[in-house]
Structure formats: C-alpha cells, structure tokens
C-alpha cells in the first residue's frame, strides 16, 4: 500500500477514536436513550441520566482512551526500538510487572494508607520488569524477546505466589478476576490517580520518533547520526513503564492492544517508525474503547472482562502475524 499523505492517517485515526468515544457514552449495560442522556447532562439538577454520563461513562471512556493510547504508543515505540514486529509491553514482561506491583499495593492495603501506592508500585513493577528484560536481553533482538518471556514468567510466578499465599479463597478469587482487566466501575478518582503518570509517559514516548527513525537504519548508522543508544533505551523503558505501569494499576492486565495497533496503521503510513507513533496511540485508544463497548453490550450475566476480550480478538491477529512473518522470512 502506498503511504498516505502525512496528515491523513492521524486524522482518520482521530475520527475513529471520536466515533468510538461518542458511542461509548451512549452504550452501556443499561439502555438509556441518547435524548434522555443529552437532557440529563444539560439539566443542572442531580439526575440519573446525567450521573450515568458524567460519573460513569465519561470517566470510563477517558480512562479507556488513556490506557489504549498508552498501550498503542508503547507497542509502536517498542516495535521500532527493537526492530521487531512482535514487541509489545506484554511480551517484554512490563505488563505483568505492573500487575504484580499493583496487586501487591491493593492486596496488602497500601493504597488505603497512601493513595498513590497503587500507580507507584505499578510503575515500579513495570520499570523493574522492563529493566530486567533489557539487562538480560542486551545483544540481540532474539535474546531480548527471550529475556522478556523469562521476565514475564518470573512476574507470573510472583503473581501465582501471591495467589498461593492468599489468606482466603475469596482473596485469591478477587485477585484472579482483577488481573483479567476491566474498566467497569472506574471513576474520576482512578483518572486523577493514573493520568499524571500516563501523561508524562506518553510525552516521553512521543519524543522518540527521531531516535526510532535513525535506529531503523541500524545501530551503527544511528550512532553516526548522534543518537545515544543507551539513553534512548532508558527513555523508552521509562516512558513505557510510566504509561503502562500506571494504566495497568487501574485496569488490570490488558493484552494485544500494544501489538495490534501499530500493525493496523503501518501499511498506511509506510515503514518510517516515527510516523506510526501518533496513529498507533489513537488507534490503540479506539480499539480499547470498542473492546470496552463490547464487554458492555455482549449479553452475558457476568461481565466479559476486557482483558479476556482483547486477548480473544488479538490472539488470531498474532497467529496471522506469525504466519505472515514465516512467509516473508528469507
């Protein structure tokens, strides 16, 4: 596919995101007509439809946008940085590290004593897991992916240990359910908690376009162009850790968005990594919004968890990607 003009793909991605965001305000487990919702929001007095939009659906949509953008942008940066189409926060152990940090904080009641404990521990877990992956996987992309798998396994083992030593079956059940990921019943409190960290992470990641373009030519060429490789890696790790760590700490684990979003935009922007960044963030946000709408309108008595739905939809894409790579591999 011939690359589209520079502004077309971001604009189309933004349009998809706006459409998904508007739809998410009008769709929920409870059906309220768009006219009632509109009148409810406009009514200055406390009313049911107004509360549904302003206190439930709007914060949920904003959180979906923040989390989806974090995952999409992180995926694009990691795929560009590692020059590997399979790279995403989950593959490098970042997501499971974040989940471990958040579970420790919430489960042991740290969040009750210190409000920022959950996002902070989520980010510490994400950055710690990512640092382990980078430390052990230095050298080649393959070793990095292998190290990521090992770190993911290690974080998974610690999570399993938390389940193992849970003081009651209820607690173990709650942890298991929480880790499946969800945006249900999230409020402005969650946005206030996570948004500052996600924002800083996104800004860091958004500034990495030039380094990624240079790295696409190879490490030696990037060095000759004045790119400081170690600093670039540390910045990427910090950005991914802040954004994905804070996002995971309020939603639980959500997979595949970081993998899928860059691949959806790449055919239309060409293979210049910096051009995938903004569209990946926008498409990641739109994808997560659409998946979240799905969890609300698919008629199940127990909510289909967001992480389960994104995995169900993302896994076939992953298979397709592997098959395509096998065909194109020399």
């Amino acid at each position, binding site marked *: 596919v011939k690359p589209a003009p520079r502004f077309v793909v971001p604009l189309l991605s933004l349009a998809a995101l706006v459409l998904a965001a508007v739809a998410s305000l009008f769709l*929920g*487990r*409870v059906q309220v007509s768009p006219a009632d919702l509109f009148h409810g929001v406009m009514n200055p007095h*406390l*009313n*049911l439809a107004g*509360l*549904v939009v302003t*206190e*439930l*659906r709007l914060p949920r949509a904003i959180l979906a946008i923040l989390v989806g953008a974090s995952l999409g942008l992180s995926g694009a940066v990691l795929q560009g940085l590692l020059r590997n189409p399979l790279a995403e926060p989950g593959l490098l152990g970042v997501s499971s590290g974040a989940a471990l940090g958040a*579970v420790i904080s*919430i*489960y*042991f*009641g740290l*969040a*009750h004593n210190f409000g920022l404990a959950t996002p902070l521990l989520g980010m510490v877990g994400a950055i710690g897991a990512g640092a382990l992956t980078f430390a052990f996987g230095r050298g080649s992309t393959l070793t990095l992916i292998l190290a990521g798998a090992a770190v993911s396994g290690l974080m998974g083992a610690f999570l399993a240990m938390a389940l193992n030593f849970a*003081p*009651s079956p*209820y*607690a173990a059940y*709650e*942890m298991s*359910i*929480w880790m499946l990921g*969800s945006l*249900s*019943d999230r*409020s*402005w*409190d969650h946005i206030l908690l996570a948004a500052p960290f996600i924002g800083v992470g996104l800004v860091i990641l958004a500034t990495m376009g030039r380094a990624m373009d240079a790295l696409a030519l190879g490490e030696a060429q990037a060095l000759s162009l004045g790119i400081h490789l170690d600093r670039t890696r540390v910045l990427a790790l910090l950005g991914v850790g802040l954004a994905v760590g804070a996002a995971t700490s309020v939603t639980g684990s959500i997979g595949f968005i970081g993998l899928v979003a860059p691949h959806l935009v790449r055919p239309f922007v060409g293979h210049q990594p910096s051009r995938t960044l903004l569209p990946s963030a926008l498409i990641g946000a739109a994808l997560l919004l659409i998946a979240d709408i799905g969890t609300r309108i698919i008629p*199940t*008595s*127990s*909510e289909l968890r967001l992480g389960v739905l994104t995995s169900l939809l993302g896994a076939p894409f992953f298979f397709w990607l592997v098959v395509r790579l096998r065909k194109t591999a020399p």
Partner: protein
Amino acid sequence: MTRKLAKRVGARLIEIDSADDFADIRRIVRQMGDDVGEPARAAELIRHMDAELADLAAHPPKRRLRVVAWSGGASVPGQHTLTNEIITAAGAVNIAAQPGRNYSTFDVEELLVADPDALLYGGVREGPPSLRSEQGQHRIVRELYGNRRITYNEAAHECGLPQSADSAVALRRALDALPPRGPTL
C-alpha cells in the same frame, strides 16, 4: 486430594453438600447429627433456627425494602444463593435475584437505575482490605449510599449453618435502623 488421603488412612469421613437455603441447612444439620450420633443436638439447633425465622415472618416490616448485596459489581448474589435466602427471611427484597442469575455482574450503572433502598456491603473481612473492598468504594456509590450501607459478615452468607438465621435477624435490625430515605434520583 484431602478426602482421598483420609480414605486411604482409614479415617472416618462425612461428606455434606453446600447449603443454598434454609431447607438445605435443616437437611444437612440432621445428616450431621445422625452421622456423629447427636441427633437430639441437631434437632435443637434446627428448632432454634426455625424459631428465629418464624419470629421474623410473624413480624414483617411495614415495607419490604429493596436491597442488594453489593461490594463491587463483579459478582453479586442473586437467585438460589444463601444471601438471597437471608435477605428474604429478613423481610427485604433482593433486587439482583433475577431468573437464571445466581451470581452475576451488577455494575454501578445498573445499581443507579435499580435504585435500591440499601446496600449490603460484605467487602470488609478480617485482615487487610482486599481488592474487592477497593472496588466497592466507587465515589458515586459513597455519595448516594454512604449512610444506607449495611456491613455484614460475608462468610456467614456463604456457609450455610443454623446461625444463618442469626444473620437474617441482624439484617432485619440493621434495616429497621436505617435513616429515612431522602429524595431519590
């Protein structure tokens, strides 16, 4: 595994069902009494439980309050659960008891639209606060139901015993003590 090991070493094993209602509790307590050679004590426990239930039924509340056991909306007890049985015995109506829904999702949106008179909050257990107690603290729920939330011992609603009637009595008392409701949405 535990049962297999117990059988292997020749330990005497009594297996009982879980109880989802007071009829189950009567049956299981009788079975236990017979199996351990204490049928009279079992009968006494059942008599005490039935007396409490009969007293509740004989003095129904002026209005059957609409309640839901809500500690976060991921899994709320509905039909064919002991919680539903306790709520009914206490003279209230469990609004989550929909046909075919034993445990189901009941998110804040559904909660606001259903507009219950009170929430039964089982998120507080012994030990540190759990993930679920965190999820049960949605700010809009705090604002609308801050003074209409009844904390109960969740374990007593999940393990059917003759003492489950005590839970129904405690719930009735808590419902009677609720402040009058202000204007609804």
